[in-house]
């Protein structure tokens, strides 16, 4: 069973995304110790042991220029130094950087780095960061394109001394730290010889060919098998506080049932993504702890919004889209598909992002009568078979349903039932995720063929990324709507370089207003991120996964 694609798509994009939750970017950061300061509610901390994590996802590559899945990015966070990370309170703290300063004009950022070494004994210096950054910038349109957005607007990187890194930007950027939180620093002495001609070797290099993989984080990879188990062992040369466990085993399962059976049978300590329909069973078991946190994952309904679309052009009309929204029963989706572990939403910017969500944008109530009234008014009368006719043809459409999206079949059925009441007939076109994405862009990323689809986005605490997916530049990139609106694009650029966060908020809200009026998406529900662990463990931080090294260094057994 494949993983929800857009979960990892979006993680990948943390890149572009993310900004501080508070706008404290220009304050100096002071590094705080992670991991050992937490008080334990469950008893005494037992040092050592192996943390066995189960997932239906897969670490698809240990090469950051190739990797795609969110699991790989979680691995990079603990394998490689990052300049900064989020604290449990979602404030900025240093990871490799001990502290940092910003110049008056906001263009120059100076990071003071902790002394350290790579796991093979080579000194870890600012030169490694300069090399990584310069390489990413140099091949940004080619082999390093995946990581390039993290360094958007960076002009130069330099290392005045081994413990100091200076990053200069060409324009003041509002979300420097969120961007750098995904800038993995690679060991220059390992990677430079592999670059090859035009940097092409960067993509071909498999770090796991030589084990243990050289890193500088709390763990090093000593065994790699993405479709089996990958083992991370404690790295004695790590510059930060040592993890409690000796090793982390990251085990891949082909299907959820096998994963949950193994978990309940005692073969696993932590499950990364619990299917909502299994929550009840796990909660009934006193040996297990189920944890739910708010997430930014929003499942949506997609309209092809390319105005050049040749057929079924009635779907481009905002009133038709509004009528369709009235026919979607979000409460039923939240209850039936997600077992109550989801809530109706209307904006692509999730409630958890706080100030960035425009509170004016609320879901329309489920009201098929109102939907019918709108369609009647538009003159799309029902034929003898009860199906409406628009522009001389029946309102019958196909909806692309990517099979990798959790709960999509059931969600479709609820949508279909609602549309039936409108006299609109829809059928599913179930395709695997890769094929579905190609079908949305067909032909050749011109977005002309498809009518509607359903998928999801996982954003970050900063709204930049989810806002970017609707820009014209994303044709052939992240776009799954074919939406392109120059006015929206201008606002997008403006919010990116607006340093004053209040002013930026106004722009972000305006962009959500435009989205609401044009309705390239109908946002359906925001779903919980559900994890579970055995009760002889403690110290998990599900909300910090991929944001900090803490979710892997802090877990420990308790007596």
């Amino acid at each position, binding site marked *: 069973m494949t993983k929800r694609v857009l979960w990892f798509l979006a993680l990948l994009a943390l890149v572009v995304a993310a900004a501080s939750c508070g706008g404290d970017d220009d304050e100096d950061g002071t590094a705080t110790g992670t991991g050992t300061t937490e008080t334990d509610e469950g008893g005494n901390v037992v040092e050592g042991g192996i943390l066995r994590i189960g997932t239906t996802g897969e670490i698809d590559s240990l090469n950051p220029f*190739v990797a795609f899945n969110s699991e790989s990015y979680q691995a990079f966070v603990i394998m490689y130094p990052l300049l900064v990370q989020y604290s449990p309170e979602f404030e900025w703290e240093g990871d490799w950087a001990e502290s940092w300063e910003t110049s008056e004009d906001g263009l120059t950022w100076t990071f003071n780095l902790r002394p350290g070494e790579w796991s093979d004994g080579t000194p870890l210096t600012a030169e490694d960061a300069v090399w990584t950054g310069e390489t990413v910038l140099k091949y940004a*349109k080619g082999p390093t*394109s995946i990581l390039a957005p993290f360094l958007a607007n960076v002009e130069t990187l330099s290392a005045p001394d081994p413990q100091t890194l200076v990053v200069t930007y060409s324009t003041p950027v509002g979300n420097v730290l969120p961007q750098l939180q995904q800038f993995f620093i690679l060991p220059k002495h390992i990677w430079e010889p592999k670059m090859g001609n035009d940097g*092409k070797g960067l993509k071909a290099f*498999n770090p796991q060919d030589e084990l243990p993989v050289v890193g500088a984080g709390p763990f090093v990879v000593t065994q790699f*098998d993405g479709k089996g188990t990958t083992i991370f062992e404690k790295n004695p040369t790590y510059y930060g506080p040592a993890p409690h466990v000796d090793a982390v085993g990251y085990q*891949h399962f082909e*299907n959820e049932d096998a994963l949950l059976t193994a978990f309940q049978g005692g073969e696993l300590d932590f499950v990364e993504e619990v299917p909502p329909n299994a929550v009840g069973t796990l909660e009934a078991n006193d040996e297990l702890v189920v944890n739910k946190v708010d997430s930014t994952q929003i499942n949506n309904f997609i309209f092809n919004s390319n105005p050049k679309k040749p057929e079924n052009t009635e779907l481009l009309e905002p009133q038709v889209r509004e009528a369709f929204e009235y026919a979607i029963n979000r409460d039923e989706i939240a209850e039936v598909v997600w077992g109550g572990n989801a809530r109706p939403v209307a904006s692509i910017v999730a409630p958890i992002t706080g100030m960035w969500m425009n509170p004016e944008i609320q879901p329309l109530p489920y009201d098929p009568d109102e939907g019918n009234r709108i369609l009647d008014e538009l003159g799309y009368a029902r034929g003898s078979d009860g199906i409406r006719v628009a522009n001389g043809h029946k309102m019958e459409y196909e909806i692309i349903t990517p099979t990798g999206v959790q709960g999509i079949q059931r969600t479709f059925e609820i949508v279909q039932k609602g549309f039936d009441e409108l006299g609109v007939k829809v059928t599913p076109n179930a395709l695997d995720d*890769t094929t579905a994405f190609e079908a949305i862009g067909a032909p050749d990323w011109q977005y002309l063929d498809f009518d509607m689809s359903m998928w999801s986005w996982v954003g970050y605490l900063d709204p930049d990324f989810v806002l970017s997916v609707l820009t014209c530049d994303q044709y052939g990139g992240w776009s799954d709507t074919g939406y392109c609106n120059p006015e929206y694009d201008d606002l997008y650029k403006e919010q990116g370089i607006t340093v004053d966060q209040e002013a930026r908020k106004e722009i972000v809200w305006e962009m959500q207003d435009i989205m609401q009026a044009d309705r390239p998406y109908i946002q359906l529900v925001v779903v919980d991120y559900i994890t579970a662990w055995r009760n002889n463990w403690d110290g998990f931080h599900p909300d910090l996964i991929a944001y900090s090294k803490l979710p892997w260094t802090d877990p420990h057994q308790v007596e």
Partner: protein
Amino acid sequence: MRGADYVLKRTVFAIITVFVALTLNFVLFRAAPGDATSSLRGCRNCTPEFRDALYAELGLDKSKLEQYWIYLQGLAQGDLGLSFVSRQPVWDELRDPILNTLPMVGLGYLFSIVFGILVGVIAAWRRGTFADWGGLLSALVFYSLPTQWLGLMLLILFSGVLPSSGISDPFIEFTDPSTWEVILDRLEHMILPSLTLGLVLYGEYALIVRSSMLETLGEDYILTARAKGLANWAIVWKHAFRNALLPIVTLVALTLGYVVAGAILVEAVFSYPGIGLVTYEAIFSRDYPVLQGAFLILTLSVVVANYIADLLYFRLDPRISA
């Protein structure tokens, strides 16, 4: 020389089948939408130049006919090409999974042959009794259950008793195991997938053995044997079973090929890292060379098994060579 004729005909037929299958393997996967540079993988937001370079690197810039020719040339030299995803030789990608699959499939196969024959023979011999009904019922049930569903049920049933996934305990190295413990661990992991495969095949075998035995048991020479006062076991095993063996041998050889293919479902349920799982994953990443390689092996195993069945038939059934 009718025998030589027969062998020659079978051989030519097998070769033609393999060639057709090779061609289909090439065409089928390329007919699926998307390719290895799909924007979900590898080439998101990259420039057209980079995408073209990637196409060139993977050999996808050439015409389909040229690609086909290169593919055939490679095959002739025993070269299956490079995986699009890992950039490693396909054979290296497939070797370990095949070695993982064979013992698992072998164990299941053995289980099904032993129990299938045993139950089939007993059911036929004790026709109409409780033993017959019980055997028939169990055979029908297992034969009709979908493999993946049966696998899931066994998984739930043995939760906490037998390991539910993978090929070995990933953390066994930390316990400094003896060789014996390593072997035992592997065997434990093999039980559920083997059993799933074995039970499904068992149903099929038991049914065929039963009907074939019923047919021979009704023959006149069985009556003669009985009249001669031979012991029951001698009648069943020496006279009836030997003569009932013909369709059974064919079936056993035939299913050998499908067993390897059937591993796809079982391995997906138990996350067993064999050839089936590799195939399953390669489909999603449009890794043509790995798919071609895996399907080549699946095809070959079916064709070779058929070929062996044909030859065995020739050996076992004097009517063919006479």
